[in-house]
């Protein structure tokens, strides 16, 4: 008898609400979760005792959805759907729950069913159509996602000119000509990023292709006009096949090219491998190794640009933590070894990156999507192999710090305005590499 009582008490224990049992992060404040779990436990008993108690069932489903036990919500609402076959709103909610799980195909069948008869509330129909559109880009054998941006920015030192009009070259002070001194400028830019994912026949094998494009044109310093494109493609393997749950391995080839003020500037070809892991739904990390042969091309305007050609070996650690529903921390560390054809352009570089993104409720009723603000901070240290004899007998050492602040204002679920400001400062034993630059920009981004 005592044992029965023990088990009875265990049945209502709040410890059932252990986060490890949740499918998705809670949509409830941390302080509310324990209270909600206690309530869920009680409601569950009511459902068992009286399965026809719809109020208890809906409340249980609502709370399960809120704390992230989507399976619990699904089981309950699928039971409600047996009670009320074809009820569009139930089908909508079930579709959304499956969508949140990432079961897009099953979600799609619920959305399709929700709008399959004529008696569908307009609100339901609208929501369904949004999700159907979202599923269309994610489900099936191939999917595409990405973004496109257009914007303008002002830089206080668009050309990265030395901080001082005088630079010391081998102990002698040079007064820089106007075109070599720091100069502000306004530029317009466009960028596009597209990621295509194609299912390959084998389970857990995809082919990914990403294209990044970037173009920037300056109002005054047209010699800085830059266009750049980078294509990476290769298979991605889910390592769960080997028992490595939540690990993926991407192997890819990469090619890029750049044009400077109408002349070919750079081209590169390489390959890389990326091992990614997602130990929890809130934590992702990965390690990358990449090689590129980078060629810089001479032009009439820049006859010595090819001196910067060489081979790049890059290792990178990346990590992203969702600290809460509204707070994400990104960390990265990168080591570059650039084997330039010319020793003075060869270098080792180590850099660290930290970014914090805070999501918060929109202060404008007309723009209901949550806003976010990101603070990024990067510091890098570069040590060149050999001296540039024109400048010094010592090899160049450069430390660069970059601070960025981005305010994202979603205009719709697909469009956002971005306000960006940044500051970059470079310290170097070469005066030519000592500069700073402040940036203020605004852009419009469409995500798809």
């Amino acid at each position, binding site marked *: 008898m005592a044992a029965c009582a023990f088990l009875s008490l265990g049945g209502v224990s709040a410890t059932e609400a252990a986060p490890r049992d949740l499918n998705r992060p809670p949509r409830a404040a941390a302080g509310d979760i324990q209270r909600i779990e206690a309530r869920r436990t009680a409601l569950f008993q009511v459902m068992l005792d009286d399965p026809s108690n719809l109020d208890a069932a809906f409340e249980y489903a609502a709370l399960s959805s809120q704390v992230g036990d989507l399976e619990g919500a699904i*089981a309950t609402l699928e039971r409600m759907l047996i009670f009320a076959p074809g009820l569009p709103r139930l089908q909508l909610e079930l579709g959304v729950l499956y969508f949140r799980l990432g079961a897009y195909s099953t979600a799609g069948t619920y959305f399709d069913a929700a709008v399959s008869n004529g008696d569908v509330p307009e609100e339901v129909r609208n929501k369904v159509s949004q999700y159907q559109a979202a599923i269309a880009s994610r489900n099936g054998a191939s999917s595409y996602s990405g973004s496109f941006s257009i914007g303008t920015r002002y830089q206080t030192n668009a050309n990265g000119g030395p901080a001082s009009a005088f630079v010391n070259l081998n102990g002698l002070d040079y007064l820089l000509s106007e075109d070599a001194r720091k100069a502000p400028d306004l530029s317009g830019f466009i960028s596009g990023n597209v990621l295509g994912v194609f299912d390959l026949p084998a389970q857990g094998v995809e082919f990914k292709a990403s294209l990044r494009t970037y173009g920037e044109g300056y109002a005054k310093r047209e010699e800085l006009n830059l266009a750049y494109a980078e294509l990476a493609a290769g298979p991605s393997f889910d390592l769960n096949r080997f028992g490595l749950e939540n690990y993926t391995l991407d192997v890819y080839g990469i090619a890029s090219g750049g044009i400077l003020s109408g002349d070919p500037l750079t081209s590169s070809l390489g390959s890389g491998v990326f091992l990614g892991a997602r130990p929890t739904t809130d934590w992702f990390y990965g390690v990358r190794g990449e090689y590129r042969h980078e060629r810089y091309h001479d032009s009439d305007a820049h006859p010595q640009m090819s001196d910067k050609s060489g081979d790049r070996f890059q290792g990178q650690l990346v990590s992203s933590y969702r600290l809460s529903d509204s707070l994400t921390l990104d960390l990265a560390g990168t080591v570059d070894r650039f084997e330039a054809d010319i020793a003075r352009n060869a270098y080792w570089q180590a850099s660290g990156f930290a970014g914090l993104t805070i999501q918060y409720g929109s202060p404008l009723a007309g723009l209901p999507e949550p806003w976010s603000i990101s603070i990024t901070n990067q510091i890098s240290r570069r040590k060149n192999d050999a001296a540039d004899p024109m400048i010094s007998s010592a090899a160049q050492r450069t430390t660069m710090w970059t601070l960025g602040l981005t305010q994202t204002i979603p205009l719709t679920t697909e469009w956002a305005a971005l306000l960006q400001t940044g500051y970059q400062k470079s310290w170097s034993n070469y005066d030519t590499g000592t500069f700073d630059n402040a940036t203020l920009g605004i852009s419009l981004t469409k995500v798809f």
Partner: protein
Amino acid sequence: MGRSRTALLAATALTALIVATNCSVAEAARVGVATAVNQDAQARIPGQGVKTIAIGDDVIHNQVIDTNEGGLVQILLADGTAFTVGPNSSLTIDSFVYDPDAGTAKVVASLSKGFMRFVGGKTSKTAGGATINTPVGTAGIRGAVVDIDLGAIGQRLGKARSRKDKKGGHGGNPPHVSLIFGKEVTLTGNGASHRLFQAGYSVIVDGDRRSVTRTPPAFQAAMQSQLAGRDGAHGGVSRQPQDGQVRGSGVTQHNSDAGLPANIPVPEARPGALAQQTVAADTRAAIVEETIRKGGGEGGGPSLTSKVRVLLPLPVDDGGGNGIVGGSPEMDRTGTLIGRVGQDGTLALGGGGSLSLPVYADSAFKAHTVSGYAFGGSTYSGKAYVGLDGFRAYMLTNGTNPLYAIAGRPTADVPGAFATSGTRHYALSADATNPLVGSLGGVIPFTYAPRLAGVDLSGAVSSDFLVAGTPGGSDPNVAARGLQAWIVIDGTGPEQKSALGVMTGAISLLGDGKSYGFKGDRGGSDRLDPSDGSTAHKGTVVSVAGGDGGSSIFGPGGQYVVLTNDPENPYSSFRDEANYPGFDEVGFSTGHVGNLASTDTSVTRNYGGRTLNGFSSIALSVDGTTSARAGTVKMQFDAANATFNALFEQFAQFSGPPLPHNEIGFTDSYGGAVYLDDDNFAASGKNHRSYVVNSKVAPVKIFNGGTSSELCSCSYLSWGWWGSADGGDGYWASGHMGNWVIGDITANVDMPKNGTATYDGNAVGTVVNGNAQYIAAGTMNATMNFGTRTGNVSISNFDGHNFGSDVSFAGSSTFTGTNGATDITGSFANNGADKAKGILGAFSTTDGAWSASGIFGGNRN
């Protein structure tokens, strides 16, 4: 059940709950509750027959739940696990164990036919927690929502067709297990195991064959239609959920009302600098550097501001002329050159006046030809030498008046720069005012060109300025020592003109205790007019600092140096002083830019720490009387301090004007003796000492008809030139371009005991014929009998003379012999372990008014 704890744990939590409220043993086998039932669904309870299931009914162990074609049941277990069983299906909950304290649960069920959806509760979060047996295999489920459709298995044909027809063609799919969401499902059966680990994939069973494939949309649609209930059926409840109830239930608030998960911002695939940002940054840096590097361009290149030292010609009235620079503040000034690279800048001089000069950016060493630059009413032309670390040397001239402008950052660590091994070769530029270049291309530095105006320089040989560090030397103030030498022998016989220039010195700490500079002395002699005697070379050579002062060695690795007379000494000049009556003298200077062209690290310093003996000869003029003398030489080498000592002694029996002692010349570090390596050693001969130059420094071709500079095929011997101009002993004695040869003399005990050998080589010496004196060369052949310890040495075609003598070496390895007027003395020399490999010696011979002395060397055939 109450017998043990184990038994309790084997019961279900639901059972326990019931026990807590109504602890009935009869209900203890209940594992779940039927939470929705569309009829017809029946329960076959072991031992209790068949019963129609109603909502709220308990489900117990081993109870078989059958549904007909209209039936649909959802069973909810105590841990939250839900089975939704479709029409024409049969499910049994074989066992269910739940420990709410541990949060673990385990369920085993069997689906013998039909459809079902499994939504995992605690069971599927427990390892091995959910197992569903089916006719096509056992499905192990972990953390997942799984659909199982057994297709036609267990169906009567009419039922299957009926279901298909009823659902508009969605039925009829092959048996399959689909992973809707979650971690994994493994279907084990028919001797194989197939694992689904990615949502959206199914194991499809086709007879004995199983395949894993992406779940076809038809599977989803069929399953959805089967499990979503049917019109007219309400799962057993009397009150159906309504749209408004759902809308107001709170379900929508955190689900559909929350909207699509925002995609903005899209996370960066690569945190930090993107490739285009790296490219843009590196390109901007390259453009800035390129702008500086190329100079010029629209708007002009960058402006250079550099401190420049300008050396102007010392007026003749002040002791200058002939290229002598500096010597007074007016002639040694500094200024700042400001101007754009690629254009002319203005050099405003301290003390007034300005000078226009072209402005260059740093580069590898390069000479630019410049002309037409005005200063003080004169126009200057010449070369601008450009290097690294701001090194600039404008070596200009206006007729006979030079103007040097020098700038650059001094080498920071001069001893360190010269501490590297090897002998450094600095190529010297020709003097701006009086360029003197041999036909072979070598610049002849520190020489007054007008005096060599009538000399054919086609055979002249001149060395680079050679420098080696002395990091292990005993004098901490000396960082390196250096030497330079050149030789020209124009013609043969009495009309011959000959000259030898040598300059040696050291790079050492200057008076300020922190700067380094080179200081050396000119030496050597010439005999340019057969009717006159010889002329001695004297004077001091220094390296010149730039506008910022400090060390006068430039470049990051000590690559550059500018050599001329000492501009800070008003009496500094190079001087050529006659050794004959009248003591005619000319003062002058030249200026040269040295650029480190190469470092020879293959050199050896095997002579270091050793004493090498040999023989010497010279035509020595003593108070105006010249006689050809032969003698010995002894040289001691000090590698650490890069110096050596040499002692020249005439043979005691030599006939000629009497001298108070046998020593007729010597040199040491005070005489500027510099030993860089076994090939490159020389002394300038200041302070009453002799000058010495090893033949390898300036290998003039005097043998074999002017085709060879080798005395013999005997690299183990060294030979060279020496001379002196000394009045320190109460008489004036001078010698011009005498010779010496040294080697590793064979010890008597090492001499071969028998046999004969022949030796071939050459002889070189000086002929004295009346007032004429000139250098001559011939061939040498010797035959030696080691058994009798006798031999013969003969010299042929020596200024048209052939002479020789039998020799003997009875008690030592030194052989001597006299044949009338010919005296020969020599020794055998080793080539390492090869004893008596060569011979070396000296001779003197007389033939009437013609006399000669010289040295010879030969290699054993």
